[in-house]
């Protein structure tokens, strides 16, 4: 079986369409979430810097500290969410598509 046939078979496989749709959609969605978190943070810096500078609970620590650390942690958590789903669902689908193409 030559390469063109494999490509045609893969493309005709509804599982491949499902994989493309889910994986691409999920990737763009998480990218947008990351950008929204980051630019949201930037907007707060612009609109309400004193809000970030306000005391968290009466002490020296400001609201900005947990918010800033939260953005860092969110980046890591988002990559984790993606890897979790990709390692399971997407890889299973990919595996099935690859096996069915080689039959």
């Amino acid at each position, binding site marked *: 079986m030559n390469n063109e046939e494999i*490509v045609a078979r893969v493309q005709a496989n509804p599982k*491949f369409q499902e994989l493309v749709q889910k994986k691409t959609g999920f990737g763009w969605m998480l990218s947008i979430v990351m950008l929204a978190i980051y630019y949201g943070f930037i907007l707060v810096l612009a609109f309400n810097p004193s809000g970030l500078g306000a005391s968290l609970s009466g002490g020296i*620590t400001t609201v900005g500290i947990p918010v*800033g650390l939260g953005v860092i942690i969110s980046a890591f958590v988002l*990559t984790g969410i993606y890897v979790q789903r990709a390692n399971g669902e997407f890889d299973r689908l*990919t595996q099935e598509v690859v096996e069915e193409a080689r039959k």
Partner: protein
Amino acid sequence: MNRRIPQILGALALVGLSAAAFAAGAVEGEVQKAKATNWSAIIMFFAFVGFTLGITYWAARRTQSASDFYTAGGGISGFQNGLAIAGDYMSAASFLGISAMVFDKGYDGLIYSIGFLVGWPVILFLVAERLRNLGKFTFADVASYRLAQTPVRILAATGTLVVVALYLIAQMVGAGKLIQLLFGLDYAIAVVLVGVLMVMYVMFGGMLATTWVQIIKAVILLSGASFMALMVLVSVGFSPEAMFAKAVENHPKATAIMAPGGLVSNPIDAISLGLALMFGTAGLPHILMRFFTVGNAKEARKSVFFATGFIGYFYILTFIIGFGAIFLVGTNPNFLDDAGKIVGGNNMVAVHLAKAVGGDLFLGFISAVAFATILAVVAGLALSGASAVSHDLYASVIKKGKANEKDEMRVSKMTTLVLGVLSIILGIAFEKQNIAFMVGLAFSIAASANFPVLFLSMFWKGLTTRGAVIGGFIGLTSAVVLIVFGPTVWVEVLGHAKGSELFPYKNPALFSMTLAFFSTWLFSVTDSSRQAQEEKGRFDAQFVRSMTGIGAAGASKH
């Protein structure tokens, strides 16, 4: 509402500008030589060099094929590669520079580091797996996948070499100055030492040695920084509140360090730089090449997950280190000169903190780590430049893909040697030059020449060779021309009168990237040649491979 807009731009500008300082990568200006030769640092540095040369020897015996040389045979695990990628990102400049920024400005330092981190998840979601599935040794493999080999490889190799050269010069000059300061060694000796070790790692040990040197450095840097952050926390009884209170008490800006601050000179500049940093990261050849060292898309994906975690953790550590330095270094007369300024400049606060929390021995350790960091980063750069010459120019363009592997590797090793000699010469030649613009320029070129072509080749069926080549070169030349005509080079380097610059912004990426994307699109859609039709026709096969990995280059040892 309208009056808010400047503030938003201001906030963006703050992030962008600070990121520039952070990225600049070099210890700027005249440095005082260390008062005495720092022996414990030198001994630990030699221990590191000895150990890494041992690894190079081990790696050399395992490096036989071209795949071993370029990608460590694809046998690096996702976790290891995550450490190596994080290592590429955690340069001496980011360790010393960001802790200095937190020391000086407090909360703003945290904002800076965040701007650098958020590009990584996006690379994972959109680029990493596709890149792994399509490429073999260099990102040019991906860009030229369905296009004409010769012109696209020449474009990609040019983009790679320009970025590598600028980055290398900046690193060499920064290395020379830092080593002068830390070890009391002569500038020229320091530069020669870095150049010689770089060549040895890459020429003999290839990607395997380069990766392991980077991994070891990442581990010792993270351990050292963790220890420093821990000691800071111990000194305040593990209470962040107590740490912040003590810092506020001892900082001239008092409570201002706990809130966002900072000034904006030019918001467009800042947005432009922000774009360069975010998309430049996805166009840096020495970072992209790391995705080919893992066995498959799954490992590529895991490597970004670990890299993001390590880089984020590292930024949190530098935040604690910077705050700790405010009351552990800034108040200690041993670290202040007669004028009450930090000895060696603010960039040295992390080094002084090492001494404050761990004595001379730990100071030596951290100094050696700083040097190791530079070595690991320049080795990756040299390998990336050498691959562009041997794999893209020699094997694909000159030999039309029919080069024998031995010759290709010989060319690669010779190129490494040439790059080593060149970087020593340039490092010495640029000692007294203002090189701060170079890393910014490297990011702008990566974002304007490499990234658009790479991104469109994977995501847009309509891309043709004509569009890619014209668009890529327009991105490259516009980035260079706009930088040269901008204030940094025109005024500060070439010495023209202030205000006489022909282009008002320091960072061209907003304009050069837009121009690159637009011209790539324009020259692709107007390309009705038969070749263009064929290239579009090959997209489906490329897309299937990029999504499924069918036909992707695997690990070499099956």
